[in-house]
């Protein structure tokens, strides 16, 4: 099979292989071992297939690649339009990278309703990939909503004590916010007679959409609200700690690693892509919210007694960086935002897996329950330190590159933004290292922890790829930025035009 041929439907393949796997899984008998192996094979197959995307990607080109565009429903004019550019490309790979690790980390920890668990996990993977690959607004909304159910089920069925509360809160928050996006999409369709992202963008750019100036601010807000809740941007973040604390490990990994990125991806693609002027116009207050998120998230993380809540609040802080980078409208800022998304996915995914390993053994996330773990669990402690350093932003690790670029962008935009955001980097070193110190150093404080087993094979297989990825991303960021940069330049084009028009006159 020639690669050209494969390229024409690789996106559909990557998107729907997990779903097909889930359907096959429904037919398999309830033998837990077979089900686990089968899910691992499917998720690895998806990952391998998805590697086709970066390998044959034409770097340096800005537009969408691997496009498929078929009519799905004639009236309304809905297309099965998929494609990736340098921005969505890596988010797809991030998703397919994390899913097999989720299967591995759940190998031993999920033993009740195993079949349902892996079916839900694979369906979730399809929905997540679909969000990043669809270029038709309708298709996008379709996948966007489709991520809700499996995630809510993962939390609600397989979660911990207050799982139902967390699942319902998660569902209602995101559902209510996204109906506003639906209303905005419907308005756009009514005026442009198209759901196609590229076509609507071009029509708006030409000024060919009737009544657009009057409605643009509302449309911007409709999209923005849906994304801001997902990110979550302060003050819409209250669902996140609950969802994380109650979710099973795999759920947390995908929630932090990929689901939150749907929000920032949406801002980058749709808010900036469709409404450049309104983005510019609304940027100041959004940047302020992002800064509050960075600092507030870090401060709250500092005082958390619960390890998972701490990591959850650190996500609020990190995602603040992403939003800050996006709305700085500078090339460095956007590149950095993209890189933080990927880095955060890898390292926070790793942190949640590591927290899950502790919970597996002691059934608690309370930091005070641990102490001095470095002696009974040396391998675990070393892995943990590695990931913590990546997350803190140590140079040569992935966190550093992204945050550095975002800060550069923020300084270019306005120095005060950069200064305030830079404190976030310090805070994050503070709360993560302090947590690390309390958990691992010193003497073993609780006798039961003396007999704790170190990491077993499956856990190593799940965590170490994250560590390796964190290092490679830190050492050779160009591998990623090479594809990201042209896409970012293209995304910024309307903004540089706006500036040059202003300057030129």
């Amino acid at each position: 099979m020639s690669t050209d041929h494969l390229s024409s439907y690789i996106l559909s393949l990557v998107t729907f292989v997990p779903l097909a796997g889930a359907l096959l899984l429904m037919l398999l008998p309830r033998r837990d071992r077979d089900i686990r192996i089968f899910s691992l094979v499917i998720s690895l197959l998806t990952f391998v297939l998805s590697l086709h995307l970066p390998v044959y990607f034409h770097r340096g080109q800005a537009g969408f690649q691997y496009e498929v565009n078929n009519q799905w429903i004639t009236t309304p004019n809905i297309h099965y339009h998929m494609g990736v550019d340098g921005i969505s490309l890596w988010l797809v790979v991030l998703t397919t990278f994390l899913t097999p690790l989720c299967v591995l980390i759940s190998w031993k920890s999920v033993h009740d309703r195993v079949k349902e668990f892996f079916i839900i996990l694979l369906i979730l993977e399809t929905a997540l990939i679909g969000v990043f690959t669809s270029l038709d607004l309708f298709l996008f909304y379709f996948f966007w909503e489709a991520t809700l159910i499996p995630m809510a089920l993962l939390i609600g069925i397989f979660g911990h004590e207050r799982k139902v509360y967390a699942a319902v809160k998660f569902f209602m928050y995101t559902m209510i916010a996204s109906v506003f996006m639906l209303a905005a999409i419907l308005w756009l369709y009514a005026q442009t007679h198209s759901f196609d992202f590229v076509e609507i963008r071009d029509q708006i750019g030409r000024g060919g959409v009737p009544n657009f100036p009057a409605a643009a601010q509302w449309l911007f807000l409709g999209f923005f609200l849906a994304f801001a809740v997902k990110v979550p941007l302060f003050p819409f973040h209250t669902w996140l700690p609950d969802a994380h604390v109650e979710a099973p490990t795999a759920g947390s990994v995908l929630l932090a690693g990929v689901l939150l990125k749907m929000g920032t991806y949406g801002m980058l693609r749709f808010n900036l892509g469709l409404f450049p002027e309104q983005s510019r116009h609304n940027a100041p207050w959004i940047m302020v919210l992002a800064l509050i998120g960075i600092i507030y998230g870090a401060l709250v993380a500092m005082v958390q007694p619960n390890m998972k809540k701490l990591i959850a609040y650190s996500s609020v802080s990190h995602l603040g960086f992403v939003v800050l980078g996006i709305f700085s409208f500078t090339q460095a800022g956007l590149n950095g935002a993209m890189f933080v998304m990927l880095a955060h996915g890898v390292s926070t995914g790793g942190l949640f897996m590591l927290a899950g390993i502790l919970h597996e053994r002691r059934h608690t996330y309370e930091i005070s329950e641990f102490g001095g773990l470095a002696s009974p669990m040396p391998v675990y402690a070393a892995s943990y330190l590695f990931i913590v350093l990546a997350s803190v932003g140590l140079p040569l690790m992935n966190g550093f590159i992204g945050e550095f670029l975002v800060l550069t962008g923020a300084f270019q935009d306005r120095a005060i933004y950069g200064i305030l955001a830079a404190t976030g980097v310090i805070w994050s070193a503070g709360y993560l290292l302090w947590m690390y110190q309390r958990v691992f150093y010193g003497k073993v404080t609780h006798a039961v922890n003396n007999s704790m087993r170190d990491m077993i094979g499956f856990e190593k297989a799940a965590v170490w790829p994250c560590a390796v990825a964190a290092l490679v991303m830190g050492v050779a960021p160009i591998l990623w930025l090479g594809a990201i940069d042209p896409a970012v330049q293209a995304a910024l084009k309307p903004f540089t035009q706006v500036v040059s028009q202003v300057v030129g006159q």
Partner: protein
Amino acid sequence: MTFPMAAAQIIPQGVDYVRILPEIILSAFGIVVMLLDPLVDEEKSQKTLGMIAFVGTIAGLLSTWYMAQSPGLAFSNMVRVDSFSVFFHFLVIAIAAVVILSSFEYMAVQKIRAGEYYALILFGVVGMALMSSAVELVLIFIALEISSISTYILTGFRRNEASSSESSLKYFLLGSFATAFFLYGVALMFGATGSTNFDLISQKLQAGPVQVLVYVAMALMFVGLGFKVAAAPFHIWTPDVYEGAPAPIVGFMSTAPKAAAFAVLLRVVYAINAPGRFWLIWVAAALSMTLGNVGALVQTNVKRLLAYSSIAHAGYLLAAFAMTTPENSASGISAAMFYTAAYAAMNVGAFAVVTHFANAGERYVTLEDFEGLGRTSPLLAATLTIFLLSLIGIPMTGGFFAKFYVFSAAVKADLIWLTIIGVINSAVGAYYYLRIIVVMYMRDARKEVPVTPIPFGLGVALAVSVIATLYLGMLPNRVLQYTQQSAQDLLLQPPSQAASASQTAPVVAIPGN
């Protein structure tokens, strides 16, 4: 000269009977069931009678297909066969078939004698089918009565339960009242236009300025039909009636008579053809959505919960045609038709699950009883989940496209505020449907609720509903094209031509399908 004409008009021709063939066949089967009932053994023959009724509905579906081959007017322009009426024929008969299938087990478990039950379903369907093809107000009234009286009796079929009798009586009294409103409306319309035929009314209205009387007539008719579709503020009866009525009948009456009443409403609204915003419908839509959803939030009885949900869904549906302008009429009609089909698929399915689960005397119908169903009966729980997700309007299900089309039609008609009320409501609605899913999967059973294996008839009914729900959710194209075609048919019937033709020729086939 005029005499033979008049005679030809009065004496029905062969093709006239073809155009009401489904009604004839369903009535015949209903009569057969009734006649057989006293002759056969009381205990053993229940299922046989049900099978006869089921075969009747299948024959009804086939005859609908046959009827669709000869579109046109029949019986002195009282009945019109076009793709619009064919759609609703198909829909209500299919609903009846599924409901009959899911009733087999119910009748045995509840120890209800079956004869009249199946016959009444068939007669009710005759009325509903006729409602969708009638283009004459008095015939519509008669059809409405046929369907209503059957449902009044059916709601009281759990004779040993006080709540069922209450339900029946309440439905009957309020229903008669509402029908009277409809009849007043018909009378006033006749007074204003001198005719009860849609074509002539429409012709008359287009000829001159519209009188106030027409608006009053329209409003009164809307009151009558609003009651039938359980739209607020005419919805007060719904929770009590749904709670008391037998579960399969609730599945039936929350979908089939509603679909038929919406068919009439669509015909009336577009025949009257008064362009502009129907504030009456706008208010009813907004109120139904809001009251239905808010009411459902606090329910613990699943039947009552679904009753409130059906009020809310009537509201979404009304949003599709709260405004009629020449540009958006087609999308409004087709969205409304699609919605009735999708709603029928998911709601009949949901009630089929409730029917099976309720057990003898409908003991298990509260949320608490559904706890842990995901573990005790994964298949039943998964099926109900699909229907509930569709009711929420989650992608991949019929409910999603249904809502989507309705709201797009509303946006197209510039009903931005109604759309916003609608989308907020659908988010609120997600909460109570989700509650059922939550108790099924995320809570452990606190009390022993026996779950019997799914019998064959019910299994088929559930499979049909699931497939229909998913089909409408993934490949809505064909159904949508058909509804759009129907919308065109409904709008393009040139009233003047048909009406003037009716004075010269007895039977006019509408050219070009």
